[in-house]
């Protein structure tokens, strides 16, 4: 009877140890795999990116939100280290950059929230943003297109949605496979 209890205790302890330690290892492996596959820095040639101003599309979005999305995109793309350089819209120095991608952002959906409503009700008043992000070559060839969203549901100001959105866009681009610059030289030469 005592032996069976001991065995069951040992088994239980082992199970707990497995549960505690196994997931971090797995997630660490995933993270390594992602960073090795997603990081384009392994090759000698790296893309640079120019962030275009945010196109509001048909959506009536406030200028502050457009500007905040644009600024946060420039910041977050710089943090990914996926690109050699991050340029702003209308930057004259981009004419001398050989491998340049252009990030076009179009707002698809915008729900203006309220910080007060979030604080009072918790469940309503969320600020929601959905955009379509396109990475294009100079010739206009779209090499990556994704729909990304960014929300503020609980804590934080409304403009925090733009930060979350930009971070999601940067994360999506970082994890996506983009062709090497040398492969798309004809597309650049088209301009």
């Amino acid at each position, binding site marked *: 009877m005592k032996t069976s209890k001991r065995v069951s205790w040992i088994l239980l302890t082992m199970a707990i140890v497995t549960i505690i330690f196994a997931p971090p290892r797995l997630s660490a492996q995933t993270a390594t795999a992602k960073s090795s596959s997603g990081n384009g820095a392994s090759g000698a040639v790296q893309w640079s990116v120019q962030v275009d101003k945010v196109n509001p599309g048909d959506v*009536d979005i406030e*200028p502050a939100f457009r500007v905040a999305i644009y600024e946060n995109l420039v910041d977050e793309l710089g943090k990914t280290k996926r690109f050699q350089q991050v340029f702003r819209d209308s930057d004259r120095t981009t004419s001398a950059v050989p491998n340049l991608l252009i990030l076009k952002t179009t707002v698809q959906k915008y729900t*203006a929230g309220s910080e007060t409503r979030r604080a009072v009700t918790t469940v309503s008043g969320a600020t*929601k943003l959905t955009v379509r992000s396109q990475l294009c070559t100079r010739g206009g060839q779209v090499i990556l297109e994704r729909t990304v969203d960014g929300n503020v549901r609980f804590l934080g*100001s409304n403009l925090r949605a733009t930060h979350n959105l930009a971070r999601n866009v940067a994360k999506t681009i970082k994890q996506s496979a983009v062709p090497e610059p040398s492969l798309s030289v004809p597309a650049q030469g088209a301009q």
Partner: protein
Amino acid sequence: MNRTVVPWQHTPDAHFLIPRRVLACLILFILCSVAALAQNASQPTNLTAPFSARVTHLLGFEGAPTNTNGTLSIQDSVLQFQNGGKPAVEVKIASVQNVFLGEQSKQVGGLPMTLGKAAAPYGGGRVVSLFAHKKYDALTLEYVDANGGIHGAIFQLNKGQGEILRNELVAKGVRVSQSEDAATKQSTAEVPSENK
């Protein structure tokens, strides 16, 4: 005897009643004139002195840390943001391409207040949240750097100051976007609307 006493006692009251009324009128007049003088005195200083206001830099003004308080001022042809003792960051007004004015409603008190509200029992924090919000002006600027790259900066000002700053910038030749009016009407925070 009585005839002489009664008027003697009443005359001082009657005598002082008129000066009291006059005194009250005088005080009212003086208060009104002081208020008028104060208004007149404040107007010329606003017109002559360069604009300066306490603002919160939310993001985008190159070289200035985000979410910091400081002083935004217009000096000659330069828009300057000064954060405490740190060197001022400035942008030429000529490089400002667009200015937009919006409105924000934010919860006051920051993180300590948020934690306090969360800790309050029986949903007391929610009741506090209902009243602990304040409206601000959000001034958005679009300007270009030396390479022609477009920057955007957002400042949070006390209610009413945003319009003064915008008017100052417009007077110095900055363009106000056509879509601004519509955007101003639709408040950032308080109007929930879904656009598809």
